């Protein structure tokens, strides 16, 4: 798998077969297939937007984005043939971002919905000064009990 871990392989082909001294040569066909898959998934994710499946819309969109990201990382970024430790660095930090996000969203959900049901004070001030007739300006701030 990891060709870079065996430089003897690369050296043997470095000048004969046009292979690099180090690293892995990903065939052009693989790169073209990856790009085609990414473009198809882009069309799908745009199309899914217009289908109402309630709260699952965002999860479908994120799922397609994760598949696209995996395609980019695996083939464009050579992670499939890279050292496992580099995979660990990338996947590990991504997991920690997800962990941080999960805790922040969980924490936010524990607080009262909003302090202001209307516009925040600075926004209301600006509205009163510039566009007092705007519909949104009529929604005066109410502080929740």
């Amino acid at each position: 798998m990891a060709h870079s871990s065996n430089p003897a392989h690369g050296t043997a082909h470095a000048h004969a077969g046009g292979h690099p001294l180090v690293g892995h040569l990903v065939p052009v066909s693989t790169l073209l297939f990856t790009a085609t898959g990414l473009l198809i998934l882009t069309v799908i994710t745009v199309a899914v937007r217009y289908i109402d499946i309630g709260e699952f819309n965002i999860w479908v969109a994120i799922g397609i984005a994760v598949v696209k990201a995996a395609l980019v990382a695996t083939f464009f970024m050579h992670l499939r043939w890279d050292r496992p430790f580099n995979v660990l660095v990338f996947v590990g930090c991504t997991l920690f971002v997800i962990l941080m996000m999960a805790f922040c969203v969980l924490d936010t959900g524990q607080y009262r919905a909003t302090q202001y049901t209307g516009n925040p004070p600075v926004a209301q001030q600006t509205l009163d000064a510039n566009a007092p007739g705007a519909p949104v300006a009529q929604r005066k701030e109410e502080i929740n009990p």
Partner: protein
Amino acid sequence: MTQITAEPQTSGHASGHGHADDHHSGEHAKYPFLAHHFETPAQQFDSAKLGMWLFLATEVLFFGALFVAYAVLRSRFPEVFSYASHYLDTVMGGVNTCVLIVSSLTMALAVYFAQRGKKFALVLCLWLTMGGAVGFLVIKYFEYTHKIHENLVWGPSFYVPPHSPEGEVEASVLAKAPAPAVNPVPAPTDPSATGLVSLAARPPADASAIKPAQSGPKGLGVWSAPTAAAAAAMEPQDPIPAEAPSDHLADPELPPNTHLFFAIYYAMTGLHGIHVVVGMIVIGMLIFRATRGDFGPNYYTPVDLVGLYWHIVDLVWIFLFPLFYLIH
């Protein structure tokens, strides 16, 4: 020497405390690009890759903090996100996604041609990647300028009617200043009675270049209420209107705190745009060196590392596009 080439790991440990330059002079004479503190090209390549991946990890955390902010805001104001997303141009965003994917492909091809030692194809692919970056920023420029022109921005400026003389001024200054006394028009006592929208401080859009009269008949300085047909057209007939109303403040559907969507939109796409600019700079450096003939099958590490950077820029946009443009 052959033993070192075959077993870079063990030889690295065995002679790690040697540090004699002539110890590996054969390897260094063979590969002029090999730095003196590395023993083999493979060791140098792996070290560079590990360093780049660690940098990319910090990039993921960098953007990750903004994604966390996005998640908190969206969980707190879901109605704002589903409403304001329709102000973003899905076509422009989709085209930009495709532009970045294709430029990622040309960057991966550039690495391939560098590995094969095809200089012309390498330089061509780098130029194509640069073209993708320029195209992305040009489209982004049109998106940004259109939104800024409509006052679809972060902060209190969002609540200043666009196209008004006051709209050009910094809103924070206006917020502190007293309300303009030019042609004071009383706000409608019951705007819901007619269903019409009155923006007192707003002149007609076609007279925006003319300053409101200080005195005299109420004319250019007064916002003429839209007709019933125009007001009906502003009502969203469809879950996804074909075109959002040009003046967001006239839209009765506008939820409070909509400016937060644009705050996080500009923060995330702006940081991404800065990364695209940095990518253009490093790709430009690669073009210079590739034209000079620095890269080949033996040495292409800079092309590979810039490629990794460019792919992570693409990867971030892959998430930004559905999260901002494609909210149902």
